[in-house]
């Protein structure tokens, strides 16, 4: 008898079986999510069938389902996302760079850190109330696109900061050392070594954050985005509405046709979301290709 056989009982068959079982568990977890998502998509598509056309995209809301359209909400959402992104992305990345690269480890720093984590979990309506107080009233921006964008920006700021921090922390220390050893300053090291390597991770965070923002309604309700809008917002200070609010508005009407319109609105929202994310994913892939690690 081989000596190993006396000492071990490998039970290979058993282990392989367990292997297979777990593979199936993980696969079904994955499939379950996909199936539910597909079912939702199919239902929304079916409901909206025949309603989603050029007229729908290019018209204003109306009391008559045949005439109703989504144009102002579409513009509202796109503009709002741009303002949100312009406000939250630089601020979020900047805060993350400060926390990871500049700030000295201290009690104070860890208090700040814990608070950022907590901010990510605050109900979004609270941000709406904050936005109403600070932007609408105090800064006197009114119930405007700008106030809405800034509020949304605050909402997603913690997510962007935390994911950017994770991405920055994941950059190997040895690359920073290599940079310093070549006489680079701190800023040069951050600009040319740390940020490019962290970019894919930062972009993933941005995708997640903006995807959340695009579907939010609660923080915009106190800001006053619930209004029935008949014009496309032309400036930062105009009133506005957004797709999810418009969709909600339609679903709450008694007529069946409006529910079909709501489904069409959902499809438009999904397309905008997809478009936004593909830009980010394209950017990410472009950089990831360049930055392949060991």
């Amino acid at each position, binding site marked *: 008898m081989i000596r190993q056989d006396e000492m071990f009982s490998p039970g290979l068959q058993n282990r392989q079986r367990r292997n297979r079982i777990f593979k199936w568990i993980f696969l079904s977890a994955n499939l379950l999510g996909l199936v539910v998502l597909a079912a939702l998509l199919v239902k929304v598509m079916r409901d909206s069938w025949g309603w989603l056309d050029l007229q729908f995209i290019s018209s204003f809301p109306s009391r008559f389902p045949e005439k109703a359209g989504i144009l102002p909400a579409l513009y509202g959402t796109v503009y709002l996302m741009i303002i949100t992104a312009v406000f939250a992305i630089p601020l979020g990345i900047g805060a993350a760079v400060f926390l990871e690269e500049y700030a000295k480890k201290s009690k104070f720093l860890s208090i700040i850190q814990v608070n950022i984590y907590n901010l990510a979990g605050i109900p979004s309506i609270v941000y709406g109330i904050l936005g109403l107080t600070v932007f609408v009233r105090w800064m006197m921006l009114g119930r405007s696109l700008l106030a809405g964008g800034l509020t949304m920006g605050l909402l997603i700021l913690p997510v962007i900061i935390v994911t950017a921090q994770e991405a920055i922390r994941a950059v*190997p220390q*040895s*690359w*920073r*050392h*290599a*940079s*310093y*050893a*070549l*006489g*680079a*300053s701190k800023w*040069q090291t951050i600009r*040319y*070594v740390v940020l490019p*390597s962290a970019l894919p991770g930062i972009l993933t965070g941005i995708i997640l954050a903006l995807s959340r923002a695009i579907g939010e309604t609660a923080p915009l309700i106190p800001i006053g985005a619930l209004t029935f809008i008949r014009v496309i917002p032309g400036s930062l200070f105009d009133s506005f509405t957004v797709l999810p609010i418009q969709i909600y508005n339609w679903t709450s009407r008694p007529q069946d046709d409006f529910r079909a319109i709501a489904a069409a609105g959902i499809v438009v929202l999904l397309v905008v979301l997809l478009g936004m994310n593909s830009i980010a994913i394209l950017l990410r892939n472009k950089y990831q290709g*360049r*930055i*392949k*690690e*060991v």
Partner: protein
Amino acid sequence: MTLESIISVRNLHVSYRDRKVLKGINLDIYKNRITAIMGPSGCGKSTLLRCMNRMIDLSEGARVGGKVLYRGENIYSPKIDPAQIRFRIGMVFQKPNPFPKSIFENVAFGPRINGYKGDLSALVEQSLQRAGLWDEVKDRLHENAYMLSGGQQQRLCIARALALEPEVLLLDEPCSALDPISTMHVEELIRQLKERLTIVIVTHNIQQAARVADYTAFLLQGELVEFGETSRMFTVPKDKRTEDFITGRFG
């Protein structure tokens, strides 16, 4: 032959938090010579090396006392910018650490950062030549550096440091992650580079010190036990501990 000292370590003390790691080191690094710093693991070789271009500043909790003179000036005096010191005194690390960029960009990084005014691609080529890597990579300069083998990556890191034309090059166990053939390449390279610059190489490998170094410093538990010409030190060591170390009786 006259010996000109380019770096002088004077009564150098280093501690990490409360742990003393270097205890009053005095050492001269001579121009256009190869100096090896050898000693058992944890004796403070890397720490000593990092003190010579102020990379030690990046170690959290490290406190430095004493002086390191570079061309007669204390590099720890407050009016010195550490970036300036690192620009003149290059460093290669134990584990190859190329940037996740192309081979070309890796070598061009230092010159770019420091405002190089000449022809960048010529400089990149010349640096890769000097690092003995040019022939292997000349057709794939725009490939990612991590496509290279470990030994090639390490020579790339040497090329990257050479691109700044530093006066001194500090090497921290540059061969410890390499196979014997790559090690031979790098050692050969180091011997050639001596004409142009001064080299300090940390190694825990006694044979390597004997093969490449003109001068050797033997460090033990944060103290400099012995320093002198390699040939002399390996034949007639003055200190009993040195003798024990090079005959492999400890460490």
